[in-house]
């Protein structure tokens, strides 16, 4: 156990985490230079967006300069803001953390958030300044920022270029010397932390575990602490990074355990595996069921594809147990599902993955948060779908979820960001200056405002310099109304939205105006209305279509005519019917972009 080092790499998005992991894998001989970048980020989408969506782990043998042999376990962490809890669990499995800072970008919001998580978890932190090969590398500034923002001695930071390999050997040495070996004993009762899992068609759910004490081998019985379920171990092993079976996995080690667990919902990140012989072994502190924060409806474009969508979601959830879904039906869109996500980015990525990996064309309705709706009878319910809101006369008051948002930004952008955030009903609670050039703005921020395009706007008003991180903070009251949209007197449930009363009319007018442009003219006049209860607050009309005709028959070219009509028929197929009105799918995405 003296020769084991468990560590993770923490960084802001795109600071080079995956490239650094590649170099370490090459230097330790786990893989040969393949030219294929970012082994751990295996999904195309991960590479494209520069973020790790799914954490992976790998075990590397390493001979240090003094000739001793070590086992280095790199535990990857999900790299985006919606997954704070999952990151904290990955950190819990380590004794040390490599804190990676991009020399050209400096310390950013997630650098700080992740560094604090690591400090809280009691990890040894090895600061590393990466991308020193870049012409705009500002090593001294980074050292200063580490000192000022995090109290980490900047001079101790190692200088690395993961791209060309500079300094990676020194980093491996530092991991061996600085990160303490794991504690715990093989002789004590079994205690493992589940920090991730994936689904294998034949072997069921495979938890990724860090063993803190005891050991596991084929044939052992193991118990899931939170549920008391007992499983028989079928296989244990390490990640190389493929699954590599071994006879036993012991205290201090990182690996996986297969026990033919067929039910996806039975394994949760953060849970503890113990031995049924010692059922009183305490759980590893900090376990909680992660709660989805953002919801949206998804519907197949063709109602015939509902079964396909169901199958795709079932399969998808096996690999991302943090999404939740349940059946939902909409008068306009037919049968679909309501999906819950950890955050906005999680939602975007999931929808994109569903489309790509499962070949599903989808209509996603606007996202919603969970409102606490208190009714006049003194009860309250949690409602994640505006169309499920009770009648206004039955509502006593409504509360909305609020997050604690931290934005780090160069001082020259503080003005625009404050302006942007004010417009989003954000409350500034603190402004700090970690160094001369930058400010940290801390907000109480309504989550509902966050999910309507705040992040994109933050990036654009700061020309990409602002970075953010957030955590759930609680609920707060407000004067909310539900706005319904009516297309030719038919309410479109999927377009209802919740707004603070003050801005409801402005939003409604904007939406109606966009709808008017999106819905093509049809054979009859189409009134578009927005209403709070029975009161209409905005209206525009689409006048009836007057002309849609093919005139000339040039030398009998019938084929060309028919093809034009076929195209029209094809387009019609993609329309959704609201009463007699054909509504294009784009209309259902409107609210996402309403404020632009």
């Amino acid at each position: 156990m003296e020769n084991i080092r468990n560590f993770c790499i923490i960084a802001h998005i795109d600071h080079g985490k995956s490239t650094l992991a590649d170099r370490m894998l090459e230097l330790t001989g786990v893989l040969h230079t393949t030219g294929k970048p970012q082994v751990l980020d295996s999904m195309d989408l991960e590479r494209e967006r520069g973020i790790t969506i799914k954490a992976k782990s790998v075990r590397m043998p390493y001979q240090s300069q003094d000739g001793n042999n070590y086992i280095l376990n790199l535990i990857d962490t999900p790299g985006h803001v919606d997954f704070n809890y999952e990151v904290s669990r990955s950190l819990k499995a380590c004794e040390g953390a490599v804190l990676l800072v991009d020399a050209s970008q400096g310390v950013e919001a997630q650098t700080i958030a992740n560094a604090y998580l690591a400090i809280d978890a009691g990890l040894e932190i090895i600061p590393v300044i990466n991308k020193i090969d870049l012409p705009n590398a500002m090593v001294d500034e980074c050292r200063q920022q580490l000192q000022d923002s995090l109290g980490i001695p900047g001079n101790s930071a190692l200088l690395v270029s993961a791209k060309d390999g500079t300094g990676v050997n020194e980093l491996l040495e530092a991991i061996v010397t600085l990160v303490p070996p794991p504690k715990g004993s093989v002789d004590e009762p079994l205690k493992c932390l589940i920090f991730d899992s994936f689904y294998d068609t034949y072997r069921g759910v495979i938890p990724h575990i860090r063993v803190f004490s005891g050991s596991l081998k084929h044939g052992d019985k193991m118990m899931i602490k939170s549920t008391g379920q007992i499983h028989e171990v079928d296989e244990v092993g390490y990640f190389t990074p493929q699954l590599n079976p071994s006879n036993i996995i012991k205290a201090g080690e990182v690996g996986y355990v297969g026990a033919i667990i067929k039910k996806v919902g039975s394994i949760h990140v953060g849970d503890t595996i113990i031995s049924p012989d010692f059922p009183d072994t305490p759980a590893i502190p900090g376990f909680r069921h992660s709660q989805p924060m953002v919801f949206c409806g998804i519907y197949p474009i063709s109602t015939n594809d509902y079964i396909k969508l169901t199958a795709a979601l079932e399969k998808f959830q096996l690999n991302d147990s943090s999404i939740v879904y349940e059946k939902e039906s909409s008068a306009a869109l037919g049968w679909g599902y309501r999906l819950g996500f950890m955050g906005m980015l999680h939602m975007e990525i999931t929808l994109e993955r569903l489309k790509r990996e499962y070949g599903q064309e989808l209509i996603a309705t606007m996202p919603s948060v969970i409102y606490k709706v208190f009714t006049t009878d003194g009860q309250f319910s949690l409602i994640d779908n505006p169309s499920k809101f009770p009648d206004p006369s039955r509502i006593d008051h409504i509360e909305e979820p609020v997050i604690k948002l931290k934005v780090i930004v160069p001082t020259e952008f503080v003005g625009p960001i404050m302006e942007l955030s004010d417009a989003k009903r954000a409350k500034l609670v603190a402004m700090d200056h970690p160094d001369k050039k930058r400010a940290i703005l801390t907000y109480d921020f309504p989550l509902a405002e966050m999910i309507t395009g705040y992040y994109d706007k933050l990036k654009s008003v700061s020309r990409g310099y602002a970075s953010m991180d957030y955590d759930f903070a609680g609920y707060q009251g407000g004067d909310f109304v539900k706005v319904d949209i009516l297309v030719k007197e038919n309410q479109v449930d999927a377009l209802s939205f919740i707004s603070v009363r003050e801005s409801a009319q402005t939003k409604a007018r904007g939406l109606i105006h966009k709808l008017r442009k999106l819905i093509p003219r049809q054979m009859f006049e189409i009134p578009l209305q927005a209403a709070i209860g029975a009161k209409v607050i905005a209206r525009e009309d689409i006048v009836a279509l007057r002309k849609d005709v093919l005139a000339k028959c040039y030398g009998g070219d019938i084929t060309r005519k028919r093809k034009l009509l076929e195209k029209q028929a094809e387009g019609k197929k993609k329309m959704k019917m609201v009463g007699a009105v054909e509504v294009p799918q784009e209309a259902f995405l409107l609210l996402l972009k309403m404020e632009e």
Partner: protein
Amino acid sequence: MRGLYVHIPFCVKKCAYCDFYSLPNCLDYLDPYIRALLQEAHKYAGLSFETLYFGGGTPSLVTPDQLKSLLNGLRGEFDLSTLVETTIEANPESINREFLLAALQCDINRVSIGVQSLNNLELKSAGRIHNAAQAIKAIALAKSTGLKNISVDLMIGLPGQTWRSLKHSVERLLSLEIQHLSVYCLSLEVNTPLAENPPENLPSEDAQADLFERIRELLQADGFRHYEISNFAKTGYECLHNLNYWRGGEYLGLGAAAASHIEGIRFKNRANLEAYLKRPRGQTIEVEQLDIKHKAEEESIIRLRLLEEGLNIKELTNKYGILFTQEIKTHLEENVMSGALVRQGNVYRLHPSRVLTSNPIFASILSQD
């Protein structure tokens, strides 16, 4: 019934709205082009036709000698003794007594004149090279030379056009006692000068619709029948060649960019003059043979363009079989329910109010697979 179409892809100047295949400043190519047409005709030698149509471009650019040699050549390849209608398209500026006499000598019995408007500002903005006086003179000349079947093309939606100016054009044309009128709405086709620089005074789509409705009233009051979406005729003067198109009939197209429909197969020549001159018999592209179901659908939607004749579902079923027309009938009935179509016995017709919004109806009849 079978038609023969001959495409003459030459113009003095391209009009601002035109995206047809025709080439300006190429009159030197007329002789070799006619030779090429006859070579291509030889590929189909022996066929007989009931209608013949010279379209363009500007077919009236051919000289009397060229016209005669073309027709003689065609008679050498085909059986033209059965012809009942021979049309030539002509532009006002190229119509003269010499040309008209040559046409009559060639047994051409119908002329379709590209008048478009009798307002000089409108003509100019459309890039036409004739003026109103020339157009009126051309029609009068055709009549006096002995042509008894005169058709005129009229455009709706030209820049600056108003109901007043359009009404004036139509009334003047009616006073010349023509037999047939094709009324087209201007559409901005990509890569045309008009689409690239649309003038501000271009009537809107809705204005076009208004103008069309009013024209229709005017024409019907004068005894014209609205027999096809874009075509009006005095009784007995419907264009037989075009009727054949809308009835799903056979036709052979000769020349660059010409389209054909022979034995259920649609095909087209490449729109390339140079290539056509080199190998007139090897230009076939876009060969399309639809399966029975789609063929039946195609015939349904084109027949529905015939506002008076309509689509006879019984005849369609006899031709294609109940298996392939059942679904069409269902769609037709849906359209009857919504008021888009009117059914009388076995015949479905477009509701008069839906003539200008017929595309969605046709699209609803096409199966989506």
